[in-house]
């Protein structure tokens, strides 16, 4: 049987070694002097200390959770209230609400102008850009 061993790659041959990886990545030493983040930190932080959790009857709840819950309530009100008022009002069929957009020609100061129409990728918006012809 022929010996295939010399042609078979050793395990790890297709992997970068530790030394190669060290040379490819940036070490702390390569950075030289690192900026002091303390002044920027003290400017940004309020002097009260780390954010406290709000104590409720059931225990501690992070402030962000209360904020998110409040935001959900506000969104709910904004979405639901108009729907309640619109009940019973017949809505137009999609064909009736479609807008046909057509430009035959555009003039600026009675001179023919160049028009560019941009359609966004989601096709939700169309932008028209008009320039004077030079």
């Amino acid at each position: 049987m022929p010996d295939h061993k010399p042609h078979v790659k050793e395990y790890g041959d297709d992997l970068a070694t530790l030394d190669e990886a060290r040379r490819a990545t940036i070490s702390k030493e390569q950075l030289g002097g690192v900026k002091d983040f303390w002044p920027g930190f003290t400017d940004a932080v309020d002097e009260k200390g780390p954010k406290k959790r709000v104590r409720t009857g059931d225990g501690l709840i992070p402030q962000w959770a209360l904020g998110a819950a409040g935001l959900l309530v506000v969104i709910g009100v904004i979405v639901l209230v108009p729907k309640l008022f619109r009940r019973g009002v017949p809505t137009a069929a999609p064909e009736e609400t479609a807008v046909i957009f057509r430009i035959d020609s555009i003039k600026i100061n009675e001179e023919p102008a160049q028009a560019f129409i941009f359609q966004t990728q989601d096709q939700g918006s169309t932008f028209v850009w008009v320039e004077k012809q030079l």
Partner: protein
Amino acid sequence: MTAPDVYKMKDGRMTDNELVRECLGGKMESYRELMDRYRDHAMAIAVNILANREDAEDACQGAFLKAYRTLAGFDANRSYKNWFYALLSNHCLDMIRKRTRFKGFLRRFRYEDPAAVVAPPPSSAPFEELDFRYLRPLPPKQRMALFLWSQEGYSAAEIAAVLRCTPNTARVHLHRARVKLRTLLEEEKNAGS
């Protein structure tokens, strides 16, 4: 239950977790000590993930602030170092996601060749010496795994704790990074010969 002894400092300095405790008690100087302790490490991590020094400085500034604000949620039985590294890497990945979304937004409205928008921003002159040519082709999580393994000597389990994934997923990130790096090195060698 106290923090494991493995996190105790041998030179008599306060441990990270003791500093955290003091900081939660209102001692700001303790947080400064923590920042000084991890400033260089943090920059190295951020630079390796973002492959841009200025972005890395912004990321570190933001991550130190975020860590301070969420310090009350830190589990004292865990390593502060790994907790902070995880928070920082997450912050960097968020930055990349936002940057990608913004580039996508620009592409939708720009009339110029999209290739011009995708090109990485030129780094400022003093930092030209940092060589990102092997890092930029790798996805951020692979860069992170490669850095932690090669520069910090992390095991797959430790990488997993930072990347917040399973050790097997961390192994996959590291393996793919090493394969890609080997390919890049081979290509460079072939181009040179």
